[in-house]
């Protein structure tokens, strides 16, 4: 056991535990010849699992502990964040940073609400429009359908960072600058190609007999969608909405360019003002509290809807 602990002390490379495990397995095979195969195998399987868990915990810690540490730090008073760390300073934790961030003069609460409005709106509109388009592409034949789908995939490959200047001019013309709805519409457009792709795949997996039966029963196109098909496409809708929400909640560059009015900033952009000390002296306590608030919805939504997120990644990854 002491050997195990010393191993786990370092951030074990992910491959190590696996290699150790197979090494142990090889050892077991030779040992098993003398001492009874089954017993030997059981013992090493347990040993391999222990190694695996220790390695996994160590690796996970590298990725999670920094985030957890920032959560703790955000509860330190500002006076303790700007001076050298000490064990003593960790004994005084307070919600002062959150209080002054949300209720103070800079009124970041408004920016949090802006972010929520934009992200929820973008998620809903993306899910709705992508569902309709996925239905259309998968279940109906019309002239130009391949071309239209090709255009959507072309948009998939255009990085919005590279078309910011024309977008700015265009959104100015459409009166969509300095507008939360305008920002949400832009986020919707950016998330649609992936959403349409996911929803089209969802509808392609629907058994044709279901749609035909609904048609025979006299169900309308929309009636078929909302009654017969709904349960089958809910996972796809969840995937689409989840991606759009997470993207919109964390997006920074477009929000920075399209919003010039402080009161309309989303949370990530508003934190630039905190970082730059626009509200007086630079206050790292405020900055950390704001960052933790920005982090919470991501973690909650992802942990709750994880299987939908992974589903989207896998469908994208395996089908190119």
């Amino acid at each position: 056991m002491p050997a195990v602990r010393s191993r786990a002390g370092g951030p074990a490379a992910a491959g190590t535990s696996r290699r150790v495990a197979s090494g142990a397995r090889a050892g077991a095979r030779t040992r098993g010849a003398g001492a009874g195969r089954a017993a030997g195998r059981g013992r090493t399987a347990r040993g391999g699992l222990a190694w695996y868990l220790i390695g996994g915990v160590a690796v996970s810690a590298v990725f999670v502990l920094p985030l957890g540490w920032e959560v703790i730090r955000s509860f330190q008073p500002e006076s303790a964040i700007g001076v050298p760390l000490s064990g003593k300073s960790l004994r005084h934790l307070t919600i002062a940073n959150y209080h002054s961030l949300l209720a103070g003069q800079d009124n970041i609460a408004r920016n949090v609400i802006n972010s929520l409005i934009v992200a929820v709106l973008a998620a809903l509109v993306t899910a709705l429009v992508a569902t309709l388009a996925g239905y259309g592409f998968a279940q109906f034949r019309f002239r130009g359908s391949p071309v239209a789908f090709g255009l959507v995939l072309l948009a998939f490959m255009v990085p919005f960072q590279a078309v910011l200047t024309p977008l700015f001019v265009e959104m100015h013309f459409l009166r969509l600058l300095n507008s939360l709805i305008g920002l949400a519409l832009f986020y919707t457009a950016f998330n649609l190609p992936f959403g349409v792709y996911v929803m089209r795949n969802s509808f392609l997996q629907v058994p044709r007999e279901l749609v035909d039966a609904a048609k025979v029963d006299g169900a309308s196109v929309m009636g078929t969608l909302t009654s017969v098909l709904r349960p089958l496409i809910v996972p796809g809708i969840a995937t689409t909405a989840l991606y759009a929400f997470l993207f919109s909640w964390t997006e920074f560059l477009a929000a920075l360019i399209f919003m010039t009015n402080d009161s309309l900033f989303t949370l990530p952009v508003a934190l630039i003002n905190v970082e730059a000390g626009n509200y007086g002296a630079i206050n790292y306590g405020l900055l950390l509290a704001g960052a933790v608030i920005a982090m919470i919805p991501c973690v909650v939504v992802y942990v709750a809807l994880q299987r939908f997120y992974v589903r989207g990644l896998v469908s994208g990854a395996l089908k190119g």
Partner: protein
Amino acid sequence: VAGTEVAGGTRPRERARTGRARRAGPPGAQARQDARTGLALVTPALLFVSIFTLFPLGFSVYMSLTNWPLVGSYRFIGLSNYQSLAHNTLFVESIVFTLKYTAIVTLPILAVGYGLALLVRSNRPGSTLFRTLVFLPFIVGLVTESYMAVVELQPSSGTVNFVLARFGIVKDTTAWLVHTGLAVTAICVLVVWFASGLTMMLLMAGMQAIPGELYESARVDGASWWSAERSITLPLLRRSIALSLIISVVGSFLAFNQFYIMTQGGPGTSTTSVVMAIVNTGFTQFNVGLASAMSVVLVIVVGLITFAQFHFLQRDGD
């Protein structure tokens, strides 16, 4: 290119379906009705994509041929924006910097992501939890983490110096974000930590798609773990590796947030990425025409990378 191919691939199946459906009603009318409905259903999505992505794409080419100011009148100046790009130090240096940055982070992200994928691909207890935890930095996003890093990289008070000074690696007073080399080092470590979870997920999906029987028979043949990885996993994972490489290379090429938040492109303009150069030219110097020319170059470069990717995938695929 890939788009039409994907759509074309499904056509025979759809044709068979509509053939069956058509028998229900009068032949032509039903098909016409279907066509109208289908078009109506996809129109909103097409409008969104056209207005916010495809039109700006074409519009940026048009703007790049003008001396467009942010507001006010403009005139055509031909290709002179493109000619001046070669002498634009901000742009040229930002390209060099972005290339260097991409070169530094790409392999570590792939290597760490690959190692992580080996850890989480198995069905052992805990693997799902490890996967979730390792992926969290990617979910939380680089913007939030850049703000956190700014606080923790401060001399004397930041946690990074506190920890590293204990090991004698740096002095407690190291000011990470005001020296180019240190700032780039810190940002690269942050980005590898942030992005390797995504590579892990993509490679894990690829690994899990490899039939287990291949490993079974390799084991029966007495192959070691290492040789099974080399002769089974690596070759069959080429598509996934290419995909994750392209996502990370394109992402590095479009980097903006971490530099804007952590160094503001400085000291001087030494950590100014291409997107940052475009933003500065267009929205600080109000030279939108020139910024559009830069954008067109960036779109072409990113397009070439993506095209190379699809070329690679198609040659190896299926």
